[in-house]
């Protein structure tokens, strides 16, 4: 952070100033909102009055002076409020990181909820009604998709697929278990534990089961928010996160099932059976819709080479359409979004320019970050807004049951799953998985969607949901980081994949496929190999433009690495020194006059310092793709370079220059017949290969 480099006194002052500004802004925005919400009472009449007033005013004003400055808030009210909220959220995010040590102890999500509580409290304190911000439509159609798309687009496919069975079992069976356990036991407690006249005993079984299904789903937003800060190892991260994504299908089905049942009042076996079928339809249908849109997006990106600027737009639009299309048919929108992002990514990335890739990445991160912040703030505001109906028994029993159900579910399922896994899940892993089952805003929004006339106990439900959310986010969210440290759980390895890893991993893939064939066992590797072959043969040809479709994965990886290194080199100033460095250190004067009768032990190449050698070697390698080879014709088309890329044209120019210089050096060396130092290991690399006949001659 820039302020840290400044001296402590002035940085403290700057920070203080910034915080004061934030607070002032906060107050003013709150009052504006309060003022605005009071206008909500009679929006239409006020609006029409305003119009008429201005009309009359304009007529009347022909006699008076023309109003130079006029106040008209009504026209900009809605966009203004929205922008205000977003700005508030972003400033809060900034503010947290300026307060020292706060972001280490408390996860951001907790802080944001507290801010939401404050804002809601202030609004209520000024006597106005709190606006119902966590409107379900807003949440499901605007706030949730960016987060899910960000997760789906950057989903690490390999660990996800390797653990797919485990994830599915946790998502489906685990959620079902949670829902029925919590719902059923809650009903039992309501019936038995309380008097027959109290409100609790009037809650039917179906309502309880519906409540159970709402509260049992692990929330991807909350999981992302908390797990991102603890940097846990990849396996656990993908297990909990994958579960939170895939349980959406279960939640959707259960929710609609129980909602309909409690509306109608009768449950038949046929309906139950249809419910099971609808689960498969919802899940697989969602995935299918996502895959379809993903393929469309990949296909479209094939033709965007002339209009690079709108490439990111296609990615966003197709994904959003996938989500909305799935929602039309009551399919799982989240699964559609994930499938769309995951399917389209390898092909789109092969087609689009580097800049578009960066744009997509940063836009997704920005949108998902803002969405997440807004969701948590709105949760806080909605808590203050109420309406609440606090019932000690219900709430405490719910919280306890949720915890117990989660623990039992995870332990029981792990026991079964470990029989099929190669790498077993240890007790520590199980603890983290159970502890990471956070609930969040999805549960609240689903509860909010319930209609009051069907569900008179709606407020009790909402209060309980909010309590569970607060409990999981605050208590579990805050304590998970020290617990991870305490239990010494393996952290994420910040590994940069090296070319060696890539080569050897592919090699091992082939090896394992071969061994599986010998054993006659159609395992994991066999199917992966088949899929890769199919992908290479048919799919890539359709969806990737031009030359890149035939490029093997290893080459793509290698080129990515080289590109990154070249960019780094240029940024660090290494590349700029290039044209001058070469001739001055390997100048012709140094090489040429040396008499050929010098003993072979002496090197024909001038001494270079080790670091300079390394640098030149690197530069040569990145720019020329060869250091110890015979010079052949340099084929520009073997490089996967997008001719429309800026910056790469400079690199090409440098390459051409280097090529010419090298040619000159070779020419001179051949003419003077200098013997190359043979295979000396720690010699500088600036040895260009001399044709064999010369090398064999003794001098």
């Amino acid at each position, binding site marked *: 952070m820039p302020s840290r480099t400044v001296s402590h006194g002035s940085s403290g002052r700057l920070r203080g100033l910034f915080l004061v500004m934030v607070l002032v802004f906060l107050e003013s925005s709150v009052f504006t909102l309060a003022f605005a919400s009071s206008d909500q009472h009679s929006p239409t009449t006020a609006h029409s009055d305003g119009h008429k007033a201005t009309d009359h005013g304009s007529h009347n004003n022909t006699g008076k002076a023309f109003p130079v400055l006029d106040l008209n808030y009504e026209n900009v009210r809605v966009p203004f409020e929205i922008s205000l909220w977003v700005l508030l959220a972003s400033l809060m995010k900034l503010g947290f990181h300026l307060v020292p040590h706060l972001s280490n102890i408390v996860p951001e999500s907790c802080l944001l909820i507290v801010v939401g509580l404050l804002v809601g409290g202030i609004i209520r304190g000024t006597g106005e009604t709190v606006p119902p911000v966590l409107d379900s439509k807003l949440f499901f159609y605007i706030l949730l998709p960016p987060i899910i798309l960000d997760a789906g687009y950057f989903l690490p496919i390999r660990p996800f697929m*390797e653990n797919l069975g485990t994830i599915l079992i946790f998502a489906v069976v685990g959620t079902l278990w949670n829902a029925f356990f919590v719902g059923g036991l809650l009903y039992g407690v309501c019936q038995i534990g309380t008097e027959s006249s109290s409100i609790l005993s009037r809650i039917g079984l179906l309502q309880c089961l519906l409540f159970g299904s709402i509260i049992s789903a692990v929330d991807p937003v909350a999981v992302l928010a908390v797990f991102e800060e603890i940097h846990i190892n990849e396996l656990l991260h993908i297990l909990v996160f994958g579960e939170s994504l895939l349980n959406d299908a279960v939640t959707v089905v259960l929710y609609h099932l129980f909602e309909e049942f409690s509306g109608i009042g009768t449950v038949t076996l046929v309906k139950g059976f249809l419910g099971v079928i609808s689960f498969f339809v919802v899940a697989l249908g969602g995935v299918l819709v996502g895959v379809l849109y993903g393929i469309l997006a990949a296909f479209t990106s094939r033709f965007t080479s002339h209009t690079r600027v709108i490439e990111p737009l296609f990615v966003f639009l197709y994904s959003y359409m996938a989500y909305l299309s799935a929602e039309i048919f009551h399919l799982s929108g989240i699964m559609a979004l994930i499938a769309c992002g995951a399917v389209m990514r390898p092909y789109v990335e092969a087609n689009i320019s580097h800049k578009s890739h960066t744009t997509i990445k940063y836009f997704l991160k920005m949108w998902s970050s803002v969405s997440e912040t807004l969701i948590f703030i709105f949760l806080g505001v909605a808590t203050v807004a109420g309406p609440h109906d606090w019932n000690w028994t219900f709430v405490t029993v719910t919280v306890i049951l949720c915890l117990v159900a989660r623990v039992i579910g995870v332990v029981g399922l792990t026991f079964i799953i470990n029989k*099929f896994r*190669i*790498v*077993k899940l*240890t007790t520590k892993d199980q603890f983290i998985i159970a502890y990471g089952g956070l609930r969040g805003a999805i549960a609240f929004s689903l509860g909010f969607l319930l209609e009051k006339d069907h569900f008179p106990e709606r407020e009790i439900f909402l209060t309980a949901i909010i309590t569970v959310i607060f409990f999981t986010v605050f208590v579990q969210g805050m304590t998970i980081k020290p617990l991870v440290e305490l239990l010494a759980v393996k952290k994420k*390895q910040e*590994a940069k994949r*090296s*070319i*060696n*890893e890539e*080569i*050897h*991993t*592919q*090699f*091992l893939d*082939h*090896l*394992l*496929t*071969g*061994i*599986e*064939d*010998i*054993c*006659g*066992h159609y*395992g*994991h590797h*066999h199917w992966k*190999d088949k899929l890769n*072959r199919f992908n290479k043969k048919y799919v890539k040809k359709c969806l990737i433009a031009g030359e890149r479709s*035939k*490029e*093997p994965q*290893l*080459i793509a990886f*290698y080129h990515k*690495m080289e590109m990154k290194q070249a960019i780094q080199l240029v940024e660090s100033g290494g590349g700029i020194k290039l044209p001058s460095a070469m001739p001055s250190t390997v100048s012709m004067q140094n090489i040429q006059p040396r008499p050929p009768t010098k003993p072979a032990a002496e090197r024909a190449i001038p001494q270079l310092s080790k670091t300079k050698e390394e640098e030149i070697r690197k530069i040569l*390698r990145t720019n020329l*793709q*060869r*250091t*110890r*080879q015979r010079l*052949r014709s340099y*084929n520009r088309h*073997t490089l996967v370079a997008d001719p429309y890329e800026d910056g790469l044209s400079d690199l090409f120019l440098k390459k051409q220059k280097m090529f010419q210089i090298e040619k000159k050096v070779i020419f001179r060396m051949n003419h003077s017949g200098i013997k190359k130092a043979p295979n000396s*290991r*720690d010699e500088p690399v600036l040895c260009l290969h001399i044709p064999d006949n010369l090398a064999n001659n003794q001098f």
Partner: protein
Amino acid sequence: MGSSSSSRNKIPNAQELMDQTGFSSAHLLRLYDRFECLDRDNRGYLSPDDFEAVGGLAMNPIGGRIIDAFFSSGQDTVDFSSFVRILAHFRPTDRNRNKEGTQQELPNSRTRKLKFAFQLYDLDRDGKISREELLQVLRAMLGLQVTEEQLQSIAERAIQEADLDKDDAISFDEFKKSLEKVDIDTKMSIGFLK
């Protein structure tokens, strides 16, 4: 199949094999069935053309090397115990077992797995993967889709990264080091062989 005891009698040195490789008798039985299935002429041993008859190996870029790995130097037959010993490398490691003691000798320890993979690279058995050997592997895997220059530069870079003692080849320790972040236990295990 007949009762397990009679089938077990068919397998020579069954107990010894089980101790040395860590397979259970059920696994050994399954492997023996597979061995008999591959051994079409019922000779009691396998030759290279038996392996080549296996479907997927022809399309596998390193199929030839895998087959050669089964035949220790010089011989061109594989009997059941050698077959099992090679496949034992791909048993999943038992994490719960204590690391000292017997674990090191079992063929499915991480080091032994890596050694097996290393030997597939290092065909001339000099203990190092030279640039030429690496090039051969890359050529096999990437085939005709890539130019020779690209292969050379990839091989160059790979050796650059891994070669710590600057001898222009990758020794077994360097090989192990470059793969330290990869979970070999998962990657080189087949669930079938648990």
